């Protein structure tokens, strides 16, 4: 592992602490087992879940591999609907554009619905710094914002918290009485946020899908906060990664149920919405302006890697996080990235910096549970291997690691050398010469007693 980077050292330290935190483990296991049961039930609603995955993968492949065409078509249709499109090469470009829009329209208050893309570009900090009050309205995100923490999970932001933790946060930040009732907590948030919706000048949402042939963005949610965010304020801004495109509005008859099923186990979430512009003549209400920001921020780098291009098929359902034995043990915060779990480990080295983030690809048992869970069939665990290979090719590993692997390769290439190496290793372990080398392993476990002879020798005597 490229353990020399600060990010890798931090990962190891956080992972060791979280893996030994039994309270954390209990909370996560309870949440994920509830999720697992719901998803298993949800999949039975399909005639054949595997066929649904194959269709979803095929449509995403078609879109991503002709992305220029679909982006241009999408833009044309948004403009025809009376909306605006802004192309942002970097997070900074996207932030500056939102700030410019807010200033131009005298925006003082922004309501936001859950969007990982806005987390990726750290939009809230930029708005708050500019003196614009910004309120997260998804219940989980509202709790995160109050606590000053990022989302723990791309779909379930406060998966790691108990009712008691959340009641304590409300008590400290809002002065509401302590309660262990989830409904009471939800109603407190509803009442408070209602005022914010009424007063907000701008609503900011993400986009689960961007539909090329109608110029619409699709939003998936359960609470109604996204609908309020694009219904009440004067301006609606939707921020979408360029990979969010799908060709036709009819494709949602597949993608909405697939995303809901993999995300929460629901057949459809409570609200699946399509927004195709500002208020039109004859409509009762709606924003005066509709803006879509198409964000690159490293996505074209991933697109250029044909081997891993399918990682751009991701619909951010969170299934690979929930399936991952590493995620369940080290938790979401250990990754220190916007996108956690297997998909985060695959894409972060491309979106950010390969040197600083390749260590994440080693945080995997390569069991393949992520690949099996992925509803759009991204070859996740092979991409973790590709990232490891790429990081060695680019010499992000340590010289000592290269030396050890070269020695290992040399020994493995000849039966005689292999036998001698084995004999030496058994001897060395018994004399304790390997203790310092094995320390990372023996810190948490015991080293097994080496056998007296190799299997090959034993077979020679008994076979």
């Amino acid at each position: 592992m490229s353990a020399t980077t600060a990010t890798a050292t931090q990962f190891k330290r956080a992972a060791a602490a979280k893996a030994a935190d039994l309270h954390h483990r209990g909370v996560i296991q309870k949440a994920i087992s509830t999720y697992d049961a719901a998803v298993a039930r949800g999949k039975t609603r399909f005639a054949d879940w595997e066929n649904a995955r194959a269709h979803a993968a095929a449509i995403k492949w078609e879109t991503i591999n002709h992305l220029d065409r679909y982006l241009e078509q999408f833009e044309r249709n948004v403009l025809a609907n009376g909306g605006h499109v802004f192309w942002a090469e970097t997070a900074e470009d996207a932030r500056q554009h939102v700030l410019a829009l807010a200033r131009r329209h005298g925006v003082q208050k922004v309501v936001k619905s859950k969007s990982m893309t806005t987390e990726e570009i750290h939009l809230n900090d930029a708005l708050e710094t500019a003196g614009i009050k910004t309120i997260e309205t998804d219940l989980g995100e509202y709790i995160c914002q109050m606590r000053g923490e990022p989302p723990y999970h791309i779909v379930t932001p406060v998966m790691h918290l108990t009712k008691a933790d959340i009641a304590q946060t409300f008590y400290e930040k809002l002065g509401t009485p302590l309660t262990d009732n989830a409904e009471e907590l939800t109603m407190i948030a509803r009442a408070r946020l209602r005022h914010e919706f009424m007063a907000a000048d701008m609503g900011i949402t993400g986009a689960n899908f961007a539909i090329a042939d109608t110029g619409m963005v699709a939003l998936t949610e359960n609470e109604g906060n996204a609908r309020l965010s694009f219904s009440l304020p004067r301006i609606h801004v939707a921020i979408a990664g360029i990979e969010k495109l799908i060709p036709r509005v009819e494709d949602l008859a597949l993608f909405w149920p697939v995303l809901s099923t993999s995300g929460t186990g629901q057949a459809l979430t409570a609200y699946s919405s399509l927004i195709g512009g500002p208020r039109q003549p004859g409509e009762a209400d709606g924003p005066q302006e509709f803006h879509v920001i198409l964000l690159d921020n490293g996505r074209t780098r991933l697109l250029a890697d044909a081997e891993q291009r399918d990682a751009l098929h991701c619909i951010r359902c969170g299934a690979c996080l929930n399936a991952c034995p590493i995620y369940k043990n080290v938790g979401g915060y250990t990754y220190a990235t916007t996108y956690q779990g297997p998909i985060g480990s695959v894409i972060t080295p491309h979106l950010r910096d390969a040197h600083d983030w390749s260590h994440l690809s080693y945080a995997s048992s390569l069991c393949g549970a992520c690949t099996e869970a992925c509803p759009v069939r991204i070859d996740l665990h092979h991409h973790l291997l590709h990232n490891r290979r790429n990081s060695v090719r680019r010499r992000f590993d340590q010289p000592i690691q290269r030396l050890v692997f070269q020695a290992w390769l040399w020994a493995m290439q000849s039966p005689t050398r292999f036998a001698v190496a084995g004999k030496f290793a058994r001897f060395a372990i018994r004399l304790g010469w390997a203790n310092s080398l094995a320390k990372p392993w023996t810190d948490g476990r015991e080293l097994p007693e080496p056998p007296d002879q190799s299997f090959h020798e034993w077979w020679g005597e008994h076979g």
Partner: protein
Amino acid sequence: MNPARENILNRVEAALRIQAHRPSPPSTAPIFPAVTNPETRFREEFIALKGELIDNAETLREFLKPFTRIATDDTELVRRTTGEGNASTRDCDLGVTGCDCLIAQTGSVVVSTHSAGGRALSVLPPAHLVIARRNQIVTDLAAAMALLRQRYDGRWPSALSIITGPSRTADIEKILVFGAHGPKRLVVYLGD
């Protein structure tokens, strides 16, 4: 002119010059089991989602009694069924709207700015009553999308929502709570 557009499109085009491995094509078998009895299926699914179903005029009158501030859209069907509203969307205890269609497969209600009096009326009030007719039930989501395409192609409403049960959240310990931000009660009146 912002050069970002050309830069991004040029990078996309350059990236795509190298071909990616194409997955094997999916089978043509149906993705969802066929819906055989749409009305029965709609009732089952809608009630399982904690929706409230009303299917005669008398029950509708009883349901409406406790509501004093009602906001309605201005469609003919709603006016005929519940009469004119007496409150604004922001200040009502019940929002009454029409819909584009109902989906049997998922127990959903499809609303748009055209069919449901704009954007807020079907999400802001604490309760939402949908006035629908039995012949508005379509079999599945694909049929609903086909119907919307046929109805709106070229001139789509600026916003549409597929409503599947009352507003909900499970953000706190995966415990299901209704009425997170949208209506706590979702009621469908199914008339002829």
